[in-house]
């Protein structure tokens, strides 16, 4: 199941050119671009690992693209996203965030129903990938591929 988080997630995956264009847009707006990755796709997992520091002073998207490429190569079986932080007063929040790389098999989620008191039902989402320990959730089951 393809997870849809962040901007553009219902579109086909962005090409490198399109990613560059989006990053350039963020830079031109004065937003700080950061690269993040995770292997826990739960929708409530909002704080992903940071790949380096946010880039505050770059003026061209190729610099951020360099980091995106490096992150995707280092974490091939993880989700990688680019987020742009708008530090201007009154906003001070993530202005744009989109996934740029995702693991190839995405097993998706299981819906757990828990019966509570008074026949109430509680629902929770459980990513199948989270059954395996962190770092081995995607890719080949026998660990990292070459």
């Amino acid at each position, binding site marked *: *199941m*393809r997870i849809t988080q962040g901007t553009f997630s219902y579109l*086909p*995956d*962005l*090409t*490198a*050119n*399109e*990613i*560059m*264009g*989006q990053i*350039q*847009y963020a*830079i*031109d707006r004065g937003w700080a671009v950061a690269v993040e990755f995770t292997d826990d796709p739960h929708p409530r997992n909002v704080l992903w690992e940071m790949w380096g520091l946010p*880039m505050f*002073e*770059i*003026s*061209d*998207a*190729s*610099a*951020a*693209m*360099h*980091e*995106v*490429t490096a992150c*995707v*190569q280092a974490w*091939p079986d993880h989700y990688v996203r680019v987020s742009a932080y708008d530090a201007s007063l009154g906003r001070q929040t993530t202005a744009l965030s989109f996934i*740029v*790389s*995702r693991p*190839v098999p995405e097993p998706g989620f299981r819906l757990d129903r828990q019966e509570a008191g008074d026949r109430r039902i509680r629902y929770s989402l459980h990513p199948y990938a989270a059954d395996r320990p962190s770092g081995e959730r995607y890719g080949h089951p026998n660990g990292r591929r070459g």
Partner: protein
Amino acid sequence: MKRDREVKGDGEVGEGALARRDARGFAMPRPGTGPAGAAAAADGMGRAHGGQAAGPDRQPGAGPDRTPGARADDGDRERLPADALVDLDREGKALQISGVLERLDAEFVGLSPVKERVREIAALLLVDRLRARYALSSSRPSLHMCFTGSPGTGKTTMAMHLGELLHELGYLRKGQLVTATRDDLVGQYVGHTAPKTKEVLKRAMGGVLLIDEAYYLYRPDNERDYGQEAIEILLQFMEAHRDDLVVILAGYKERMDVFFCSNPGMASRIGHHIDFPDFGICDLMEIAERMLSREEYRLSPQAAVAFREYVALRMRQPRFAGARSIRNAIDRLRLRQAGRLVAAGGQVGRADLVEITEADVRGSRVFGDGSPPARPAALDGSLGQIA
């Protein structure tokens, strides 16, 4: 789910370039190669929507994945048949090469070897564009440069303008200038240098990185110095991101030669070694005139003669720093003019505020050392009160 598979199926990079994560990772767009380059650089957002992808991108992985927009853009400058002819003048005009070069001529006095090199680079970029339209191979030339020359010969100023020029010619996407010295690149402890250098390089991407007095990076007397590490990262970036930034090393000739001797890799990766000639007295006078007119001052005819003598004397003195010395001299001229006006008191008009007289020039210490050619005693006295 279904759409997902369709996207994967029809060979778009949509899934391809990112999900497959081959060694290259991404197919980077190259701004200068295509006719759409300049337009794409001007409008990043447009590119994002496939409006102006980077022209006929010739990289192997990027062949079939043209967005529809890119194809439409090619349409207006389609491939030419082998026997077609192109009007070079008109193409040059479209690139605004002549305008760029005229501005270079207008803004810099002398420096003919430098201008000649910039002219050649502009011509090469134009020819490359035309070659691309004939489907000939046109790899991007490496434009890393080394500026050598005495102090005050315009190295830094030229680097600043070069970024803009290359941006206008469509070689650089942004054309901003980032100036770095040893402090900005070399860290203070183990593991500090690499992130620091990369940070600066990332800031400079899309533009020009000027490393002033680059020879300070390498300190042969201290083998545990981290400068060597910075140089290695620099070299690696210069090679891998040739399309994204232009590195310019600047410094004095002799020390630069020593630096290159100890770092042969650096010397060979820099294609353009440009030596800035020293300014002659005529060049310096013209520079002075331009500086003065920019600040809306004027030398009286006698003052101009005196200033020429001043420059001739100053050139022979130690620590003469070319145009920089001229700029300092002009600042002192303004000081003396202001002092003279205030001391004289009374009424002044616009002409008085603009004109620099002979006395202002003759007041310089440079004349005092040798035999002063003509120094009216009365003026001496009035200046003595101020100084």
